[in-house]
């Protein structure tokens, strides 16, 4: 097949990939703590034999996937009023204990379970400085400070329950998304230095609809342009076949 068709094909596959990433961003526009992603592509150059009238090796460049990069900027913080909704302002992640090990999340929606432990929507325990955090029925007015210190009032006296564990990583971008708003990594977490906690708030996703929709239109138009390019290539081949193959009478 002609190289131009193959180059077009590589671009069309890239457009499909971009569309998938945009669709996932828009689908997760209401997912707390979700970070938008964008597909990155790179040029792949091959050398081909010169065509008629050219000398030396010619280069043809295809497009290929380079990666999907995550935009780690802060999402808007929304007030919910729920006492166990926490938003992290700055860099950092909450730690939850799952059956597969420790997982990290920026989705700060937690509730209590039947034993009074602070858990996420899947029932995984949120980790404090000394393991899971338990709120007893005697604890009233549970308050979480900006530094993550959890305190309450027991029989009219102030009592300290623990401290939320907020961690950071040397390389945040290599955290692997696991779904269910969780990340996993083999990196060793360090205590987050510049993170503050907001109680009764949730961090919304940082997806910006205008950006995604305009990007989507761009991808769609690029796809259409390539498709019509392939179409004209095909027409050229067809014409060549009919003209050159026509038997002289």
């Amino acid at each position, binding site marked *: 097949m002609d190289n131009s068709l193959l180059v077009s094909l590589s671009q069309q596959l890239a457009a499909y990939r971009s569309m998938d990433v945009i669709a996932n961003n828009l*689908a*997760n526009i209401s997912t707390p703590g979700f970070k938008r992603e964008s597909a990155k592509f790179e040029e792949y150059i091959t050398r081909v034999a010169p065509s008629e009238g050219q000398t030396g090796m010619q280069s043809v460049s295809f497009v290929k996937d380079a990666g999907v990069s995550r935009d780690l900027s802060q999402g808007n913080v929304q007030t919910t009023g729920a006492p166990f909704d926490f938003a992290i302002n700055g860099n950092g992640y909450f730690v939850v204990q799952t059956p597969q090990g420790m997982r990290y999340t920026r989705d700060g929606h937690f509730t209590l379970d039947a034993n009074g432990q602070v858990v996420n929507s899947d029932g995984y325990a949120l980790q404090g400085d000394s393991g899971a955090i338990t709120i007893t029925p005697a604890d009233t007015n549970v308050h979480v400070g900006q530094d993550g210190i959890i305190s309450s009032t027991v029989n009219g006296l102030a009592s300290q329950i623990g401290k939320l564990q907020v961690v950071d990583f040397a390389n945040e971008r290599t955290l692997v998304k696991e779904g269910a708003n969780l990340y996993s990594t083999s990196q060793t977490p360090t205590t987050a230095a510049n993170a503050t906690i907001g109680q009764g708030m949730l961090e919304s996703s940082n997806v910006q609809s205008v950006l995604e929709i305009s990007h989507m239109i761009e991808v769609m138009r690029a796809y259409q342009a390539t498709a019509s390019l392939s179409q004209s290539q095909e027409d050229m081949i067809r014409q060549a076949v009919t003209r050159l193959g026509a038997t002289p009478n």
Partner: protein
Amino acid sequence: MRALSIASTGMLAQQTNVEVIANNLANMNTTGFKQQRSEFQDLLYQNVMTPGAQTSDQGTFAPNGIQIGAGVKTAATYRVTTQGDLTSTSNPYDVAIQGPGYFRIQQSDGTDGYTRAGNFSLSPQGQLVTQDGMLVQPGIAIPANTITVQINAQGQVNATVAGNATPQTVGQLELTRFPNEAGLNAIGGNILLETAASGSPQAGVPGSPGYGTVQQGFLETSNVNSVDEITSLITAQRAYEMNSKVITAADQMLQQTSQMAA
């Protein structure tokens, strides 16, 4: 093409979101109703190239990797159990809870149910019942020739009977708490049931540590904030629209593809 199915998960999630908001708005004037919110999670990711994959023998690593998401799902709809405003009704059998706790009532099948809707009445036998005729637990009977009923903040029910100037104590209202009140199962009729997630009920007298107090002649309104709900409704509707635009765009791309072969 994955974009089609991803966008459809987005539309489904926003549909749930709108349904929850609609239910909140419909119950704006329901006594003791607690606002619900939907919580979303991203779906599994397909690892085309894992972040941190080695790209050469020299120990260079891919900084990003390629992970393609599969959309979004509704993880939970949860109740926001903040206090609702108290509204004065002057009805002696309207009791509002100020602070944590639920009234325990006996359902028609004999099992316990819990409610914060304190709009009680009397049964033909003079017992304190809910609007559906279910008994408030522990049972409280008001004597037939009662002139006035006083319920104090600690839930003690005193009745002044005709011919006797001294009020007599006829019962004591109790409140029930749960380790996780968001885990209670709502069955309609303002009634919540105990579940494995809520933990076991702990009864107490109103006003004791950890329990709210009761207020006679008041009702707790729903804690739904209309401005909040309408704003969420607009956001949800726009998000729904945008996901449908993705479907249109993906459809056009597919159409273009099939036309190429024409």
